């Protein structure tokens, strides 16, 4: 099935950067892109990265670097990216439950640093490589929380997380506009509830909590692979006229 579906994906470029690559959506994206023959630069700060790089079949190189450090990212890419780097998937993100009253300034800055500055810095560091490849594509990972207050499961929503993702969707449009001249497309994917370590800890929770089940049209967690497919589609030549958009992959959450 994977091979047949992969026929949907054609890539003119040769290599992709994936952040947040050690687990969850980032890991699934690494695996899918590598399975199409792309060389993947897998970026994460986590100890798990080495195990992921080992486990994912294909041409995957791991880099442990802080995505908020643009200089460090640029140096790392110069060192390992090689020729034909054309794609970026900004999957790194954090999600820390805090009520509005409890968010400290440090909480706020940390959230915005990782989820917004990180995606901004990685894309800007990668842009010269994408230009040299004759263009390419960037996919940012937003969230349904950019558009909707998600408070069904926990009434203390996550205002700083939601703000970081809404800003990322806006940044996606600005980047799409600014980078079109370099034949670089920029889009976002907005997942709903996805079964990842970030949302579930390391527990194997397979059932969506009841209030969310009642609301969702497709009442289950998405598998990380289902998000990876949307990322790969938007990256691929099949989406060569798609830029500046956000595609929700949420089982109908936003329209229910």
């Amino acid at each position, binding site marked *: 099935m994977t091979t047949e*579906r992969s026929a*949907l994906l054609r890539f003119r470029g040769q290599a992709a950067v994936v952040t947040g690559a050690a687990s969850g959506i980032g890991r699934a994206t690494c695996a899918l892109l590598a399975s199409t023959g792309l060389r993947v630069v897998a970026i994460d700060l986590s100890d798990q990265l080495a195990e992921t790089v080992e486990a994912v079949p294909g041409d995957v190189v791991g880099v442990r670097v802080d995505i908020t450090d643009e200089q460090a990212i640029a140096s790392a890419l110069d060192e390992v990216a090689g020729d034909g780097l054309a794609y970026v998937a900004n999957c790194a993100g954090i999600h820390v439950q805090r009520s509005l009253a409890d968010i400290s300034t440090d909480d706020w800055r940390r959230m915005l640093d990782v989820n917004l500055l990180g995606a901004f810095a990685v894309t800007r560091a990668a842009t010269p490589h994408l230009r040299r490849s004759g263009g390419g594509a960037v996919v940012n990972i937003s969230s349904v929380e950019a558009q909707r207050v998600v408070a069904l499961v926990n009434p203390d929503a996550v205002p700083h997380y939601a703000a970081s993702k809404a800003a990322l969707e806006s940044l996606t449009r600005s980047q799409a506009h600014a980078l079109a001249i370099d034949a670089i497309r920029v889009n976002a994917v907005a997942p709903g509830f996805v079964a990842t370590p970030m949302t579930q800890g390391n527990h194997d929770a397979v059932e969506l909590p009841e209030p969310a089940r009642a609301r969702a049209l497709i009442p289950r967690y998405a598998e990380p692979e289902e998000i990876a497919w949307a990322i790969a589609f938007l990256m691929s030549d099949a989406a060569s*006229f*798609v830029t500046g958009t956000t595609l929700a992959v949420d089982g*109908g959450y936003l329209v229910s």
Partner: protein
Amino acid sequence: MNGPLAGRRALVTGGTRGIGRGIVGVLRAAGADVVASGRAGAASVDGAALVTADLRDTAEIDRLVATASEALDGLDTLVHCAGVYPEHALATMTDADWHDVLNTNLTSAMALVRASIPALTEAGNGRIVLISSISGPRTGISGLAHYCASKAGLEGFARAAAVELAPLGITVNCVAPGTILTDGLAELYAEPGVLEEVARRIPAGRIGSPDDIGNAVAFLASPASSFVTGQSITVDGGQTLPEVQG
């Protein structure tokens, strides 16, 4: 035939010309079996069975869906691309002008979906893709108030249908094309240099092709998009991003 859509059975309305013809080509190349509908006298399309139907007539739509389902031995995928865009200034638009566009573009979607529900339900993972537009859902065009209303209406219809049909395993999504190079567009922009000027105003630097829309439809029709429903994918080369065009 092998491919990501091997074994899928699709009906594509407006599949004999323009964007619809491109969609048929991409779905065929991905391995789907396709019935294309067109108006009486429409040219046939390579590799797809042709059924003629007047989509302003909901009885003809019932017949079209029945004929297509029989020819394909079932139906997994409904793609509604047929649409008209005659220019009429609001001040002189007649009721007939309005109804003609709304019936062809929007009421047809309701009738097509209604008639397809049993076959799509039986298929178990039915897919509906409606071709809307940036004009209406995102922007407006003078002289095309009826067209813009019909396309904005399609997106609202798609969201409601996504909610209602999810329990049946059917996803409903839209693709919203920007400026796409079809025979119709080439006719509209026939003067020398106009197409180049239009392309210059699109951030991607080119006018889209029917295949660009076909690729988005193929994604939404494939197992790769199983968690996507109620959405609209804009395929416009960034045309709707800047506040000032060009």
